[in-house]
């Protein structure tokens, strides 16, 4: 009964979604009197999809094997948390989560959005319903999560063991909140194009929604990067894999949008560009979903692939992105031009930020799709790989960092180069000092890493510079948000540069009792023993690590074998010190009885994710600051 109830809730939700689209359509044209039902319908629809998703979770937790999806992805011996998380660790379940988040976001707009002009809001809710309808159809016709199975099998087929990790419980939901949250910005842009109502009020209404989605995207990408780092056992934290790029592209677009929407809110500039970015950000979410689910590109992230689903998603992509861009082309000429500004001004700095972020987005998009384009043109299969991305995106990212350091020190509307120079000078001097010091200490360092460290130091100082001589208690919260987020980028950049230039790696074949030195540690292979868990068995190495005269640490990397389905994974053992991480992986046993060990000393690598977390915290501070201020001074203009 639970599965049938879930399916019924979905169908009902789809019907209400159609009603929402029709009612909003008539209301925007000023025909009929359906305007009053749009908001309640949006809320009811969200309640229904949330119910359907809750019921699917219940089926997974109870391991109801009469449901095909549960049979494929669940197992009664699996711990509770992973039965719970298995709900979204598969295609159908994650698409249901996608739709649930989409409709809940729509309901949130219906309930809480008070700033936007009423007609634009109705058009926005209509846009949200139009997106919803396509994804309901995708769920109901091509990815039904509630399909029954008969006869009922005795046991489920488990879950990909790589995904049996606490990270999985939180990583996809966070990322999806970000991806799908961007749909709100997309619908806002549609609404504004329909009613031609683009200006500071519109921008201030849209900004919190963009910020919210962007915070979750930042958290999701940071968590995903750390998950790949410790779970895949390759010692890397970013692989330029299509699936990773699929999450990076919406983030780049959303970051650009976040900054351009500020120009629109404060100075009424960049009107068309902001609408364009709002369309692109969610389009990138959809392109990413398509790339991941259609199996069109080779990726290390395996997803069940089905060409029919690929065609369905491609059709949705054409309808929504094509439709939005056609609307943009038809309407943007009638949107009044925004305010102008000087070439040396805060606005100009933000435009440079936008152009560079867009260029990096283009590089990532081209690199991700290049194998496909070349195959289309010449029939050749190839892989582009990190050399392209690092060489093409790296220098642009460093220029972006330099602009980021100067940007917050620029004045709105018009500034002069001389006083700007005085404001930027301390950061520039610090960057040069760090560059010289690092070059002297490590002459062989790669140029990108060297520039990265220097710019990170300069950016860190420049980020906190806007607080100089300010009363910290009276500094608005959203300014703190900007400071913390920019500081986070500096911290993360320093971590990346340290990791890529100072990492020490050892691949050794060691006998039990042998000692190996890696970085500041000496590591002894003490024993290799069999061990087991709920649904796996493993060989576990006991490594004793000592640093100088310090205490002995014990690390226990494992080579695990899961039996449902049978899969081998390596469980890394990581020790986090104040100045870096010791990363250990147990490999295979050689014919002569020695054990393969892969050992890394990664100085300051944790800064990468700490920086990512800081960026998200900065976003959260800005969001709270904006909302609080909007409550206090509803009608007043602010920066």
């Amino acid at each position, binding site marked *: 009964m639970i599965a049938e109830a879930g399916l019924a809730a979905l169908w009902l939700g789809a019907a209400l979604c159609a009603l929402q689209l029709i009612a909003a359509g008539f209301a925007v044209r000023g025909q009929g009197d359906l305007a009053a039902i749009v908001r309640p319908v949006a809320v009811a629809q969200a309640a229904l999809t949330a119910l359907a998703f809750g019921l699917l979770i219940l089926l997974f937790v109870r391991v109801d094997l009469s449901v095909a999806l549960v049979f494929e992805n669940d197992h009664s011996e699996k711990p509770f948390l992973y039965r719970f998380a298995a709900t979204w660790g598969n295609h159908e379940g994650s698409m249901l989560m996608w739709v649930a988040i989409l409709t809940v976001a729509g309901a949130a707009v219906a309930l809480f959005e008070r700033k936007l002009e009423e007609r634009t809001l109705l058009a926005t809710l209509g846009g949200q319903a139009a997106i919803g309808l396509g994804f309901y159809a995708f769920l109901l016709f091509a990815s039904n999560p509630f399909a029954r199975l008969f006869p009922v099998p005795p046991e489920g087929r488990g879950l990909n063991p790589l995904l049996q990790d606490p990270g999985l419980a939180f990583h996809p939901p966070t990322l999806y909140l970000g991806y799908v949250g961007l749909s709100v910005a997309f619908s806002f842009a549609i609404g504004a194009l329909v009613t031609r109502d683009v200006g500071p009020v519109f921008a201030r209404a849209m900004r919190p929604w963009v910020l919210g989605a962007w915070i979750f995207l930042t958290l999701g990408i940071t968590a995903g990067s750390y998950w790949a780092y410790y779970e895949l056992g*390759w010692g890397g934290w970013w692989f330029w*894999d299509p699936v990773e790029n699929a999450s990076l592209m919406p983030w780049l677009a959303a970051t650009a949008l976040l900054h351009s929407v500020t120009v629109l809110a404060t100075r009424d500039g960049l009107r*068309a560009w902001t609408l*364009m970015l709002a*369309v*692109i950000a969610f*389009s990138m979410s959809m*392109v990413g979903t*398509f790339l991941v689910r*259609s199996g*069109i*590109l*080779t*990726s*290390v992230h395996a997803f069940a692939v089905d*060409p029919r689903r*690929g*065609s369905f998603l*491609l059709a949705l*992509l*054409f309808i929504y*992105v*094509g439709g939005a*861009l*056609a609307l*943009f*082309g038809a309407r*943007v*000429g009638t949107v009044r031009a925004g305010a102008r500004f000087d070439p040396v001004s805060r606005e100009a700095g933000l435009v440079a930020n936008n152009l560079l972020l867009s260029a990096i987005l283009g590089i990532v998009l081209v690199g991700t*799709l290049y*194998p*496909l*384009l*070349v*195959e*289309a043109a*010449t*029939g*050749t*299969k*190839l*892989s582009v*790989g*990190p*050399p392209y991305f690092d060489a093409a995106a790296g220098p642009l990212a460093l220029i972006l960092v330099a602009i980021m350091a100067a940007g917050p020190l620029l004045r709105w509307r018009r500034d002069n180069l001389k006083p700007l120079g005085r404001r930027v000078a301390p950061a520039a001097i610090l960057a040069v000092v760090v560059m010289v010091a690092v070059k002297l200490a490590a002459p062989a360092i790669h140029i990108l890493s060297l520039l990265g460290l220097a710019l990170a130091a300069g950016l860190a100082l420049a980020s906190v510079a806007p607080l100089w001589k300010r009363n910290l208690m009276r500094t608005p919260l959203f300014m703190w948000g900007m400071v913390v987020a920019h500081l986070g980028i500096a911290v993360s950049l320093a971590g990346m540069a340290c990791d890529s230039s100072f990492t020490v*790696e050892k*691949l050794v074949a060691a006998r039990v009792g042998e000692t190996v030195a890696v970085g500041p540690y000496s590591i002894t292979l003490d024993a290799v023993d069999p061990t087991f868990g709920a649904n796996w068995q493993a060989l576990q190495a006991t490594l004793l690590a000592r640093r100088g005269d310090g205490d002995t640490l014990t690390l226990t990397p494992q080579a695990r074998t899961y039996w449902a389905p049978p899969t081998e994974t390596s469980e890394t053992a990581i020790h986090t010190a104040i100045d870096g991480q010791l990363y250990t992986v147990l*490999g295979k046993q050689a014919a002569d009885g020695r054990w*393969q060990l*892969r050992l890394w000393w990664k100085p300051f690598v944790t800064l990468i994710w700490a920086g990512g977390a800081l960026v998200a915290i900065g976003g959260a501070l800005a969001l709270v600051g904006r909302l609080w201020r909007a409550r206090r001074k509803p009608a007043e203009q602010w920066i």
Partner: protein
Amino acid sequence: MTGPVKWTPLVLFILLGSALTYGLAKPDTTNIRSKMIGASVPSFTLPPAMPGLPGLASSDLATGQPHLVNIFASWCVPCVAEAPQLKMIADAGVPVMGIAVRDRPEALRRFLARNGNPFRAIGADDASQVQMAMGSSGVPESFVVDGKGQILQQVIGPINPEDVAGIVAAVKTAR
């Protein structure tokens, strides 16, 4: 934004969409003949790509014995997929020579430790020059080269399990 400029995003998107449509609909076989087939291997000398294995020069391919030359990289995902097939070919007695494109010794060492080492020699092609000269536009690609250094066959993309027997036979019958 005025005039034709405002339609540019739509046009770009339609191009992108067409490529994606092609990607979904494309036929699976992509073996095309290269212009290099029948030609001699271009003359080159590549330094060793990692300590412990010799580098590769064109003179090593004209020793009277046929070879399989594999152009690959540690950062290439399809190269991981074809590693077991290369190992089978090497185990069947075919000398497999590697050209590592834009690679680093430590990354290469890690790649070979994880996926096995079928190579007798690996040359470091740090600027893709030899790759280009061989008429290869991506990784992985493999060339069957006869004893006089002539290219007999080119395999574009990863070697699939069903290709192994044919490649071994092609090398064995070459002189």
